[in-house]
């Protein structure tokens, strides 16, 4: 659930002077005799055709523009299901990290990112063992710059490589598709690190990581093939698969890869 305090914080008019005033002024005003927005939406969607409404539209450019906008939005609306997005359980993470960055709460955002830093480093060809240094570097950088806009992961990594490792650039420049196995490994490792998991589950996950597994369902195959022999039951394995899948979605959302 998004934090109530943050919601209040973000609802306070920005102290942006002319920029915010200009932004706000771009929203047309509603006059007292303008119809309900629901009526305009129904008209735009062809669900209503009220003579009084049309009469009003004839004399109100703002409402005409709105009807036209809703008509356009209605055409594209079938493509996206806004509400279904809102109810996905993992959305909390996405909202959380961006909210934190945008609010300048970089410490919390970095804490959320921390478990994934070794994999991110490996993906760009750097030693995962540098995660601690990267973490400290990011903290210092974001603290000193105090700008959420600096929270660009590839830029961070490039800066880290240049400033801390004295390299010209990153050893590897991953393409978007290269991040899928990274996401999978992040998810496996995150579940593996969970204190509630048994040693058997941890070994099973380690086997998956070592073998470069990218599909959580493959865990069951690994179990049946007897890798961490008999240590994980079928039911336990299905629970872990579900947990890894959830985690994978969470990480994918975090990196915007889904």
């Amino acid at each position, binding site marked *: *659930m*998004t*934090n*109530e*305090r943050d*919601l*209040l*914080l*973000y609802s*306070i*008019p*920005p102290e*942006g002077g002319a*920029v*915010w005033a200009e*932004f*706000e002024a*771009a*929203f047309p005003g*509603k006059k007292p005799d*303008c119809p*309900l*927005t*629901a009526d305009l*939406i129904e008209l735009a969607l062809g669900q209503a055709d009220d003579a009084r409404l049309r009469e009003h539209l004839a004399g109100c450019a*703002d409402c005409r523009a*709105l009807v036209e906008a*809703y008509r356009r*939005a*209605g055409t594209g*609306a079938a493509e*996206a*299901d*806004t*509400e279904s*997005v*809102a*109810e996905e359980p993992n*959305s*909390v993470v996405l*909202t959380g990290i*961006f*909210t934190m*960055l*945008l*609010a*300048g709460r970089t410490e919390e955002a970095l804490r959320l990112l921390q478990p994934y830093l070794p994999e991110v480093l490996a993906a760009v060809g750097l030693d995962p063992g540098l995660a601690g240094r990267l973490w400290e570097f990011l903290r210092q950088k974001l603290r000193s710059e*105090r*700008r*959420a*806009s600096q*929270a*660009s*992961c*590839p*830029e961070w990594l490039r800066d880290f490589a240049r400033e801390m490792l004295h390299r010209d650039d990153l050893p590897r420049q991953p393409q*978007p598709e290269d*991040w899928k196995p990274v996401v999978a490994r992040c998810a496996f490792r995150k579940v593996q690190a969970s204190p509630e998991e048994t040693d058997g589950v941890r070994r099973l996950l380690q086997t998956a990581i070592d073998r470069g597994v990218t599909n959580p369902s493959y865990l069951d195959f690994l179990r049946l093939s007897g890798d961490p022999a008999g240590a994980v039951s079928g039911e336990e394995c299905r629970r872990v698969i579900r947990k890894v899948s959830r985690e994978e979605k969470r990480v994918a959302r975090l990196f*915007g*890869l889904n």
Partner: protein
Amino acid sequence: MIRSDLPHRAELLDALIWEGSDDDRKRWEAGPSAPAGASLMLVLRELPDESLAAAIRQGFLVKPAFEELFVHRYTAHLARWFYRWGSDSHAARDLMQQLFLRFYQRRLASYQAGDSFRAYLYKAAYHLWVEKVHRAHRPFPLDNIPEPRAGIAGPVPQAEAHELEERIDTALRRLPPDQQQVLRETMAGRKANEIAADLGLSKRAVFMHLFRARRRMEQALGVTARAVPKG
């Protein structure tokens, strides 16, 4: 209608939404005492967000409840959120219209009665922004945090955020005890049904306290919900 009647009428309507049956609501709508037009809008203005959302889900007073909840109450909030996320005004208007359209068409089908409506709306708006603006441009979204606008050090710069936090705390301490307690519990991440159980209140009463607390806080902090008028 006399303005002093408003709290009483709002209380009755709130009870009808949360505790009445569909038949009760239909009878009320057809009855002679049901307010309409501007009078109805005044009564709806006194209802918590969650009650209005519940009414829309029930198909009860959908159009006026939608107008109050989305257009009057949240257009300004949405504009500020989109601004802070880095949208320009055209994109913000488009996103807002898409949100309104989807919510109206679906009658808030995915909203869970009892959850904070504000948090639900914020999340929906944020995800629409991510889908339509943020992610549309680049594949790696941590690279995508928008550049701050000229003259503003960030969407909520730390110094400003710190000052605002202090203002929020001051305003919070000035709330009546019951409203303060409900808002503090909500800020601590607790849900309405948990708060209701602890305080021996109905969930409806919790929402009412929360609504009044938010309104007082917003007044104290200069958050004018109706500053941006039209959706």
